[in-house]
């Protein structure tokens, strides 16, 4: 089986006529980290809720870990681990009690359960606080326990719904490191939703951009960025140039295209930005146009998002 998750044409509207999903399809391969990227309200959480059997789609089908989510939800539930967008712990129970109960529900018993709980507490650096009620824990610790809970039964598919939202930078870095370690485990597929571009870029092997309840683009981060064809080259000129002259000069530089001039700021795209810069500088200097600064940027997912969703990404 090569696909851990397959969703086909999911539609869902909420009472009151809010359309959450409008024909969303995706597939997550076994063992990979798949990122679902989009702003709040795009349909990421609804997708996760349907794939984790919490909600039912109005139409469409989904298969998770080899089981149909509508026909055999109870089989799906045995195979998945779920970290919801908001922490979902028993606040009055200790970390150990939270983990132990979760393990029992999945049929882990006795010594095996005790060992697994201890192992997860260690791995998530929670052993010191294990026997205190989680209400007093920091947000980062609670979030790590959420992930530990989802792993107690060694699921084949893990859903992480915005795992770093609300964490401070330190907590986010720790969570990224942990997700990175999880990703190395090739027996587990991970579906990660996020509204952070850098998070998707860093963690996901493949990703899909969701907008308005549909996938508007998908592929590897590198592939999506390549679709933009090349690097962005920005030149800061010393003073506003004579526009026709500047355009004429720059048009003769090989490799540059999509030239835009905005005051002192000249932008263009190049297949190989670094190679195009010296020629551009030489051409401008010889025409008497001084350059104050040059930047060459690889296209970011922000650019990808702009192109596919038609607007800037505002998380």
């Amino acid at each position, binding site marked *: 089986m090569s696909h851990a998750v397959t969703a086909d044409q999911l539609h869902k509207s909420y009472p009151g006529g809010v359309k959450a999903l409008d024909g969303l399809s995706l597939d997550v391969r076994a063992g990979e980290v798949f990122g679902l990227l989009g702003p709040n309200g795009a349909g990421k959480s609804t997708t996760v809720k349907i794939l984790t059997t919490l909600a*039912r789609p109005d139409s469409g089908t989904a298969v998770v870990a080899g089981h149909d989510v509508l026909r055999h*939800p109870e089989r799906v*539930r*045995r195979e998945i681990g779920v970290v919801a967008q908001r922490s*979902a*712990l028993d*606040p009055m129970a200790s970390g150990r009690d939270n983990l132990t109960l979760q393990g029992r*529900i999945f049929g882990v018993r006795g010594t095996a359960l005790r060992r697994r709980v201890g192992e997860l507490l260690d791995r998530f650096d929670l052993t010191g606080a294990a026997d205190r009620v989680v209400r007093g824990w920091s947000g980062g610790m609670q979030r790590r326990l959420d992930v530990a809970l989802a792993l107690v039964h060694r699921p084949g598919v893990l859903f992480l719904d915005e795992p770093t939202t609300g964490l401070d930078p330190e907590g986010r870095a720790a969570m990224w490191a942990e997700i990175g370690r999880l990703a190395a485990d090739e027996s587990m597929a991970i579906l990660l939703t996020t509204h952070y571009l850098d998070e998707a870029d860093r963690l996901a092997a493949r990703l899909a951009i969701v907008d308005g309840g549909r996938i508007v683009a998908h592929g590897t981060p590198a592939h999506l960025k390549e679709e933009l064809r090349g690097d962005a080259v920005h030149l800061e000129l010393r003073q506003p140039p004579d526009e026709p002259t500047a355009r004429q000069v720059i048009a003769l530089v090989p490799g540059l295209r999509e030239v835009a001039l905005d005051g002192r700021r000249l932008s263009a795209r190049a297949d190989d930005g670094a190679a195009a810069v010296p020629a551009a500088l030489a051409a401008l200097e010889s025409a008497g146009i001084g350059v104050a600064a040059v930047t060459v940027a690889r296209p970011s997912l922000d650019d990808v998002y702009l192109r596919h969703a038609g607007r800037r990404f505002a998380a």
Partner: protein
Amino acid sequence: MSTSVRSDPAAGRPAAGNPGVPVLRTLAAHTWWMTGRRLKVLAKQPAFVVIMLVQPAIWLFLFGNLFRRVVELPGFGAGDYLDYIVPGVVVMTAVSSNMWAGMGLLEEIERGTLNRLLTTPVFRSAIMNALVAEQAISTAVQVLAIMLLGLLAGADYPGGVAGLVVLLVAALLLGTVFSALSNTIGMLVRQRETIIGVNTLLLLPLTFLSSAFMAESLMPSWMRAIADANPVNWALDAARAAMTADPDWGVVAVRCGWLALAAAAMVFLSTRTFRAYQKSV
């Protein structure tokens, strides 16, 4: 707890996990874990436990003194008012405690713990019935405390232990009707205000449209007609029939049977609400 052991085909039976373990035993285990989880939280709130025990004591004292002389009314039919209101206070306590079960459910929804549990193989009915069982256990403690307090204040229980057992069973069945009703409302409307409103609206009319504090024979006839259809009054009829020196077991069986049916129906209804929840979540 007549119905916590019940299979739940439509709402997702955890199959195949432990082959060989019968479904009913798994369901019982799940219900027990889910209940234990809630009782642990209750045990960490001693102030709440104290209030839970003091409140019925106040009712027993307050109503016992306020209405002490109603037994002198011609046709009341009881000798001592304290004897008369022990079942009344028990039943009122059962209703007033259990009708808040839905608040626990709303808390589970707000904390995200309900959604977390729903994505695991735990029985849906175990989640719901744990709230009912939690209430039943605290109701049992309250009922025993009231019986003991009554005894200390000088109440007579001519029906003996058998009579008190019937009172306890009737209170638990009645409590289940109301806790499952409260869960149903909580799941469908998901608003604290609605539960508070319904409870405030129902508690006093249900209590006073029964023989809790006033003999039915002294009620206006239209009230008596309503009381006959009031589950609170079924519990009192059963208890009063069993708590006399010469118990009428026929009345006990019939009234407890109705209560059990009502409890089973409410519990069934409450577990069906997961379908509505799944649509709106």
